[in-house]
């Protein structure tokens, strides 16, 4: 299957987020690798995704799951070789799957040779590649992100006897983007992978590239200038490739990352995700419609990236204190589940393994404006292990079967990079790909079907959205439109059956065709259109004039 050559391919994409380490171990060393990933590309193709986002796979001391990169131009030996990566890239492309890789611009590992040189001497040519200071008093207005582990954004380096700046863990010194040599070097790194054929980058932690006194050191104009420069070079040298911003910010602060269509192609819509969970628990569309109302228009070539869960905690940075308390009480009563300002749990456990709610949330993910990202394992309802530290509980091995090591690896179980989920509800004997492939009504099969339905219409990826506002607040309803095509999505956020009257006057004369079963519903007339929905049920209707 050839790759779609449309430069706006990312708008129609359904992205699967996966860490090589977690997916499939081909050589029996207990760690997933690129050869293993290549073997499982058929599974992803069958699932229906057309892009994968690979989490960091570079050489790293792995103190932050690879986000502490020690060499940008190589592959971590545990995952294979550059050649293995090339093969994955080629195979994926042959299957019509694009490959997006992680690029951590903001910081390196403290084990990176650049930092080792930088700290070695104040006269070293790379001294100015990082942000050094004689005092830890600078940039005091800057918040600390990893509140649970870090007390300051400055760390004392006993070797060079100075403080260095770090927005994340202290072993992740920030690069100094005021230094043109750093900017040039990082573009070289990106070019290296682009020339190899990667289709895009997920740029990590982009709001924090530049520091300025008296500011919160986030979203600064200088940072945007640097990002625009990267985009300019990308368009000139690698047209059709894509940049995805990781900027955990409010919508108004996110908007500048799209600029005039000349900065990022896509950005995660961080504030929407917790509000989808909130709306579900409240049985009220308000949090969702409210945040989407506050979401500014973005240039036509740009796209939001939507997700339910990812490798990090369910971040609650972009909610109010009251909302955060509510989310904690609703989804993480056990304090072990909380990390930083978030909840370190997977989708299925968050939703009490309730199939109806899992389907509804995926239904909204697939029908709201944006490109959906599915976190590996969520398509089968994998569980988590909150007893593992940091965010490792949501990064356990993929559960392929009920057999040895869940079919993930042939290694001895104690050699696995992380323990398998073993509990009776989410453990691999109960939740695995093989068994779900064997059941037409499994979550995995349902995910395949919903992805297929979404892929059947460009309206989901590219269409406009118009919210209907039925008086029943438990119903989230909207019409997605693209050209002459219109799709009505109706979601019941309630645990009880609901009746709703929709104002569809604008679509009078259309009949509704339910997109999953292709069944006809009555023609829209002058009266409000009455629908009834079961608990957590949702419908997608194609509106057709016949």
């Amino acid at each position, binding site marked *: 299957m050839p790759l779609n050559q449309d430069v706006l391919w990312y708008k129609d994409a359904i992205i699967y987020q996966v860490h090589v380490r977690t997916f499939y171990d081909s050589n029996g060393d207990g760690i997933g690798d690129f050869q293993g990933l290549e073997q499982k590309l058929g599974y992803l193709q069958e699932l229906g995704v057309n892009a994968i986002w690979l989490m960091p796979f570079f050489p790293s001391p792995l103190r932050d799951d690879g986000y502490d990169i020690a060499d940008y131009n190589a592959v971590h030996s545990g995952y294979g070789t550059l050649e293995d990566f090339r093969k994955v890239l080629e195979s994926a492309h042959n299957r019509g799957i694009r490959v997006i890789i992680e690029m951590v611009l903001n910081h390196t590992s403290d084990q990176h040779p650049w930092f080792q040189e930088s700290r070695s001497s104040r006269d070293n040519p790379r001294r100015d590649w990082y942000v050094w200071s004689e005092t830890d008093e600078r940039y005091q207005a800057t918040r600390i992100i990893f509140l649970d582990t870090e007390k300051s954004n400055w760390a004392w380096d006993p070797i060079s006897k100075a403080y260095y700046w770090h927005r994340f863990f202290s072993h992740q010194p920030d690069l100094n983007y005021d230094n043109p040599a750093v900017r040039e070097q990082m573009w070289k790194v990106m070019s290296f992978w682009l020339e190899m054929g990667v289709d895009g980058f997920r740029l990590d932690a982009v709001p924090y590239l530049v520091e300025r006194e008296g500011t919160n050191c986030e979203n600064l104009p200088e940072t945007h200038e640097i990002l625009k420069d990267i985009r300019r070079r990308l368009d000139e040298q690698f047209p059709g490739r894509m940049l995805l911003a990781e900027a955990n910010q409010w919508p108004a602060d996110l908007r500048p990352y799209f600029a005039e269509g000349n900065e990022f192609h896509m950005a995660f819509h961080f504030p929407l995700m917790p509000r989808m969970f909130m709306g579900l628990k409240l049985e*009220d569309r*308000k949090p969702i419609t409210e945040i989407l109302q506050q979401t500014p228009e973005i240039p036509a070539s740009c796209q939001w990236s939507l997700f339910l869960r990812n490798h990090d905690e369910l971040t609650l940075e972009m909610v109010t204190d009251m909302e955060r308390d509510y989310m904690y009480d609703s989804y993480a009563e056990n304090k072990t589940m909380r990390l930083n300002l978030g909840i370190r749990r997977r989708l299925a456990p968050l939703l009490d393994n309730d199939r109806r709610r899992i389907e509804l949330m995926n239904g909204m993910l697939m029908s709201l404006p944006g490109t959906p990202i599915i976190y590996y394992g969520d398509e089968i309802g994998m569980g988590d292990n909150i007893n593992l530290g940091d965010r490792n509980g949501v990064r356990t091995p993929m559960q392929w079967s009920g057999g040895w090591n869940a079919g993930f690896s042939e290694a001895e179980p104690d050699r696995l990079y992380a323990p398998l989920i073993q509990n009776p509800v989410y453990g691999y004997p109960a939740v695995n790909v093989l068994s779900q492939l064997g059941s037409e009504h499994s979550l995995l099969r349902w995910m395949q079907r919903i992805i297929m339905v979404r892929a059947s219409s460009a309206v989901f990826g590219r269409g406009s959205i118009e919210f209907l506002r039925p008086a029943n607040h438990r119903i989230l309803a909207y019409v997605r439109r693209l050209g002459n095509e219109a799709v009505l999505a109706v979601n019941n956020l309630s645990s009880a059956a609901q009746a709703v009257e929709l104002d569809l006057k604008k679509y009078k004369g259309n009949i509704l065709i339910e997109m999953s079963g292709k069944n006809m519903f009555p023609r829209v007339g002058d009266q409000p259109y009455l629908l009834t929905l079961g608990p957590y049920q949702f419908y997608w209707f194609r509106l057709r004039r016949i």
Partner: protein
Amino acid sequence: MTHDTSALMPAVRTEIKLAEENFLTDDFLRQLINVGEVDILIGVPTHNNAKTIGAIVQAIQGGILRWFPRERAVIINPDGGSRDGTPELVTGISIDDLRPVSNLHALRTLHCVSTLYGNGPSSAVALRTILAAAELLRAKACIVMSPESSHTEGDWVSKLLLPIRKDGFDLVTPTYRRHKFDGLLVTNLLYPMIRALYGLRIREPYMQEFGFSGGLAGEFLLQDVWNDGTNGRGIELRFALSAITGRQRICQSFLGQKDHVERHAADLVPALRETVGPLFSGLESTLRTWSNVTGSQPISTIGPDHEVLLNPVRVNRKRLKEMFSSGVAELAGVFQAILSPATLAELQRIAGLEEGNFCYPAELWVKTVYEFAASYQKSVISRDHIIQALAPLFRGRALTFLLENRNGTAEDVESNIEGLCLEFERLKPYLLQLWKSRE
């Protein structure tokens, strides 16, 4: 050919009964369907309250946001045909309007539903509408708020709801900071008599703001009070009496300052109909309950059970005295049917006193009230005439209260009220004796 219609009959009867009970409009029902299940329901009955209603609804919304941000809430506004745009004001106030001033943010949709129930105010229809909504929406806790108060605060919502939500009470009656001469009908008749009858010291049994559980709402809705020929008079008092006699868990909660409302002489008879009427009429059906009660007990109270304002107010004592004396004279024939000869004679004696020496003693007042109650039960004359006849006598008692407490401190006033209550309790056997003698 014969038809057996017996199987059909019950169904037909049921249908008719159901049809009779369809007092909610389709439009209102449709709105309730959209609201769905709620945790708390706030009823705000209105009729031409445009001057005050905006601030009250905002205060309610603020209270919900501050105290119950996670609860599913709805404001129900039964309107008796306002012509000043009151319902539009109620439904037009957005909870988001509060954000700039309060920095409060609503987690949920807060529904505000207004329904027109008639072309004139009826507290009974309004309350029935609220109770029906509470039942249909499965509200766990409800309050009714007056649409007139200029002192309504957001925390009234919590003060009335929290005892139900947290402590499991079924009825929360209010207490207020009032001027010592406000609410004389309450302090001189309703509070002491209800206290003596049922043994509970409920300071404000004639409630304008009150909270209640969903369970109590459902029970009262099923009672035969809506079509019993009383036109729903005094429904709030009947609601309270129903909770009292139904042994529901009752507490009172201090809300704050209550507005002083200017009363006109003509307001008294309707007020008596609204209060004393249901109080007297309820005695018969609750005889078994009250006849076994002696003394009284305080009830759980959140905050003070009363607070008194002492600022001087002008009262036309001379007019009160004139209305009392002329009433005693003009209604002598009526009183002969209602009162005992001794009581009537004593009333006639004090009617002749100079204003400066006037005193309607507590004992005489209590006997008067009890004799009225007994006569009401026996319907010696039209019950409505009995209620009307009490008006001039109440004015005499009010005058005495004013004179006794003219220079009184808060403690003095409270002491007098307590003394009157004890007199009602002490003379309760007299009421029982009257009751039995007239059976």
